[in-house]
């Protein structure tokens, strides 16, 4: 399996998308709804036809093959187990279609159910299983046919938060175990960042950036990526040379070829630190806490700077010290920042 490349030229859903997934790799497609990520997956699976472009798997052109001949395992967003079959029969379904003997079929089905930790539930019907269990059986079913590619279409979005996180990690563990090439579609950035080798951030049918999670987060290629992945403050500033000056502070630029002039700098909340300020002066980096959102170990604090607001992410212990109404001074860590295209005048800056 050498990889997979596809081109597709259709205005509406996918706009000439190119994507290569290497063997054994887990690539997540991340984007807002309607960005074309699910369409990509469905085209890949053969559930929809491409208007143009080519899909190759391991060097073979599969563009014109029907879904049933593509050799791809798929897990759907909606519960897709066959209601009239037990978990074991569901997993064995693909093997039965491949005319594999019943003894071998049964053994393989059990092995797969064991892999997802559900061997003890093999003879239950889907409605006797929880949502998370159903999706795990669906995963076992997709893997049982030993497909060349595993396609996951938001398999976790119907589950509650705790099960989602557990199953997410489990999917990654199994994927590494089996070593299967996987394409994972999600709108949940946390999910995408947590388990993938590379993340492709999509917008309007194009991939804006395809890079390892750390890079997508810390060095976003475009302002869309910066704003979609993680929270971002938009602060007015002025570009000069390789730095942008924001509220009297020089921050290095990710892209040093940015033309000089007024611009909007995208600053991560965790790059902003707050300290209680009792001096009473009102410099460009002092403000009043207006809200604080408790997120568990960390808290997000919103500060009114007079002409704009800014979000800071602090440890909860620190945030408790700064109730709403307290005066604070800000420090912005000099991480490389991205400048938003179409720089607006300073007065239109928003947080």
């Amino acid at each position: 399996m050498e990889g997979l490349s596809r081109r597709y030229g259709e205005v509406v859903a996918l706009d000439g998308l190119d994507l290569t997934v290497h063997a054994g790799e887990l690539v997540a497609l991340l984007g807002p709804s309607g960005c074309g990520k699910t369409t990509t997956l469905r085209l890949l699976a053969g559930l929809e036809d491409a208007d143009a472009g080519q899909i190759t798997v391991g060097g073979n052109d599969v563009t014109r093959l029907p879904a049933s001949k593509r050799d791809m395992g798929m897990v759907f967003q909606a519960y897709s187990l066959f209601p009239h079959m037990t978990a074991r029969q569901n997993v064995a379904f693909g093997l039965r279609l491949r005319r594999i003997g019943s003894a071998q079929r049964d053994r393989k089905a059990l092995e797969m159910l064991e892999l997802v930790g559900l061997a003890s539930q093999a003879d239950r019907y889907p409605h006797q299983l929880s949502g998370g269990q159903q999706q795990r059986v669906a995963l076992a079913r997709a893997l049982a046919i030993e497909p060349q590619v595993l396609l996951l279409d938001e398999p976790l979005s119907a589950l509650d938060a705790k099960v989602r996180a557990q199953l997410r990690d489990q999917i990654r563990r199994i994927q590494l175990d089996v070593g299967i090439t996987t394409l994972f579609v999600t709108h949940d950035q946390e999910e995408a960042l947590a388990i993938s080798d590379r993340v492709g951030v999509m917008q309007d049918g194009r991939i804006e950036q395809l890079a390892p999670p750390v890079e997508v987060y810390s060095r976003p290629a475009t302002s869309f990526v910066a704003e979609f992945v993680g929270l971002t403050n938009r602060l007015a500033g002025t570009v000069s040379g390789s730095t942008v000056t924001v509220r009297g502070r020089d921050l290095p630029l990710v892209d040093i070829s940015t033309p000089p002039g007024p611009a909007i700098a995208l600053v991560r909340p965790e790059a902003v630190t707050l300290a209680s300020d009792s001096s009473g002066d009102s410099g460009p980096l002092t403000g009043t806490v207006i809200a604080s959102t408790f997120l568990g170990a960390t808290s997000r604090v919103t500060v009114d700077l007079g002409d704009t607001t800014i979000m800071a992410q602090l440890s909860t212990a620190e945030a408790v010290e700064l109730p709403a109404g307290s005066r604070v001074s800000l420090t912005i860590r000099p991480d490389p920042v991205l400048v938003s295209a179409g720089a607006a005048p300073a007065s239109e800056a928003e947080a």
Partner: protein
Amino acid sequence: MAAVTSVGEAPLAVPAKRGRGMQAGRRRRLNAFRYVVFTFFALFFLLPLLAMLRFSFEGSTLGTWSASAWSQIVSYQGPPPLLSAVEISLELGVLTSVVTLALLVPTMIWIRLRVQWISRAFEFLCLLPLTIPAIVLVVGLAPVYNKIRHVELSALMLFWAYVVLALPYAYRALAAGLNAMDVKTLSEAARSLGASWFTVIFRVIAPNMWQAILNALLLSAALALGEFTIAYTLLYNNLQVELYSIDRNTPNASVIFSTSLAALIFTFLLLLIISYAGRRRRRGMR
């Protein structure tokens, strides 16, 4: 391969508990209402049936008892013999429901899966016979049946007309079954596992609408068993036509009651068997 420990989640389908919050008084009032409605309808349906039963055992003089009307069902000497009419009606019931289902089930699934845009027109077409009175249908059917008679004389040929009559009922029952499941996702899951369209229809979708198929079967069979107008006007002899002619030709009026009651009991038993089979199948799945 590493086995992964089960995530401790509760199954989705927890046995439904009675709303504990519902006040006892309200529940009692609801129960009382239920019994009143039930009793009302039981009387409404049972009284005529009981009257029929009584009349079927009416002796030669008023107020006496006799089982002769029931024994006459078997010994009735036509023409044509009663039992052959029962047989014809039964065969028509089976033929009509099988043909209707064989036509509708694959077609409806196929339309749902592949040609959604045609579904409105198809629904209209299927429901159309409901709006045309049987007697009007006969006007159009008569010349067709004249032609059919050149080839085949048997009353079984009525099934062509009965399939058309059964379409709306079978369609409604099957549509309910199709709507109750996520046809698209199930078929896509099966397709991605390598299933052909044939496999998708007959091994994935159809088994999951078992209850709906049984309902459709029951409705079309019941329709064929109870049909009178078309058979009578086209001069065929089925059970209903036979009952009518017995009524006209026998001096023993009780026979009409015993035969009608027998037909009713027969249909009722059929209904019981089908719904029992359906429920057992369901329990196997559940």
